[in-house]
């Protein structure tokens, strides 16, 4: 119990220190936009999803660990994402349709509003769900050489970072704080070989490693 108390205390201090730390978005200046035409476009991490992309997925939530296989594919204009265990048990089957989100299947143990919302947001962001209709602005962030693209998703700001015309990071943030950071790394043949989703407000990480087939 003692060590638990210590941990709680420790994290409170950490949180306090973190909240005192400087707001990373304090010096954001809108340079251009908002526009909804072709002058600024957001380019997805996936050039072509007509063939399914398979990733080994590792999910860490608090001290729990779950691994499996994540398949992403464009089917009839929707992005379909199916997550199974290595042994074939289906965890969920999501459809990100142009105007809506459909849960075709979810394992009973995952069927919880919070879990589904988090997964929907995280995976939806990875597959660029709803980005087509978003108003985009270009912003200058202190410390970043290139301009950063910004959109709004409900209450959150979404920041898109590009390097050599490739998407390498998406941040979900409030006015002051980063909430989720998604990185896309090691592109080979227009496919990011590693995708990392890290939550800053609670311990949850999703690591996706591309599986060549």
């Amino acid at each position: 119990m003692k060590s638990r108390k210590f941990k709680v205390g420790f994290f409170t201090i950490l949180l306090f220190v973190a909240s005192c730390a400087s707001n990373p978005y304090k010096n954001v200046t809108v340079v251009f936009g908002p526009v909804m035409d072709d002058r600024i476009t957001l380019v997805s991490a996936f050039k072509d999803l007509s063939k399914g992309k398979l990733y080994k997925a590792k999910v860490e939530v608090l001290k729990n660990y779950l691994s499996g296989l994540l398949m992403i594919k464009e089917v009839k204009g929707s992005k379909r994402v199916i997550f199974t265990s290595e042994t074939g048990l289906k965890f969920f089957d999501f459809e990100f349709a142009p105007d809506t989100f459909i849960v075709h299947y979810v394992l009973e143990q995952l069927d919880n509003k919070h879990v589904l919302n988090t997964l929907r947001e995280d995976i939806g962001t990875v597959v660029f769900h709803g980005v087509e209709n978003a108003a985009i602005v270009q912003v200058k962030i202190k410390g970043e050489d290139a301009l950063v693209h910004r959109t709004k998703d409900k209450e959150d700001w979404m920041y898109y970072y590009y390097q050599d015309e490739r998407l390498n990071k998406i941040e979900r943030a409030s006015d002051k704080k980063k909430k989720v950071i998604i990185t896309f790394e090691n592109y080979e043949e227009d496919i990011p070989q590693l995708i990392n989703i890290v939550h800053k407000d609670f311990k949850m990480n999703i690591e996706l490693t591309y599986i060549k087939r």
Partner: protein
Amino acid sequence: MNLQILKDMLNKLTLILVLVALQLLSVAQADGYSVMKNVEDFKTKAKQVADKTTTISSDFVQKKILSIMEEEIISEGKFLFKKENSIRWEYQTPFVYLIIINNGEIFIKDDDKENKFDMKSNKTFKSINDMIVNSVSGNIMDDDNYEVSYYESGSYFMVQLIPKDEKMKEYMSTIQVYFDKTSYDVVRVKMMEESEDYTSIEFKNRVVNSEVPDNKFSFK
């Protein structure tokens, strides 16, 4: 985010994922299959073969069919069985993953992550483990957790299992176990979901009763 709920759910989920890991024995439509003519004879012979089997070592090919995507995920590895109920599934390509079931315990290794579970604490778990052991060793017909029906084609006998338990049905609506008609060995298992998706596991290069060291089923 309610972390406790999530935590509980993940715990339960891990159990279920292991359950299904166990079931790795699935199959297909009864195309070209007719009702088995001599069920008693099949059961007797399958049991005789099973009784004589002390170890099985085999390659396996697992196919996960995602029908809506028109995609299949193929993985391959090594399978080991040793009487009474030790099982080792080792996925080798295109990913590495290891499951060992021994002495009522389940061990999973995924890269550097290792997990261990006690099966005795979970009744469903135990019944699925029994199903796996019984399937692999050819004793599946005796499991009263399933409605069992018998079919045959030119080359195979097929035993079809439909879970009686509604919970179990959510994960697998039907299980088919295929036996070679001459050797009575289990050559393929197919597990179907309520959607059109299914998982099929084929056993290849099967060697029966070779020396399989106990340490293949041991873990820390």
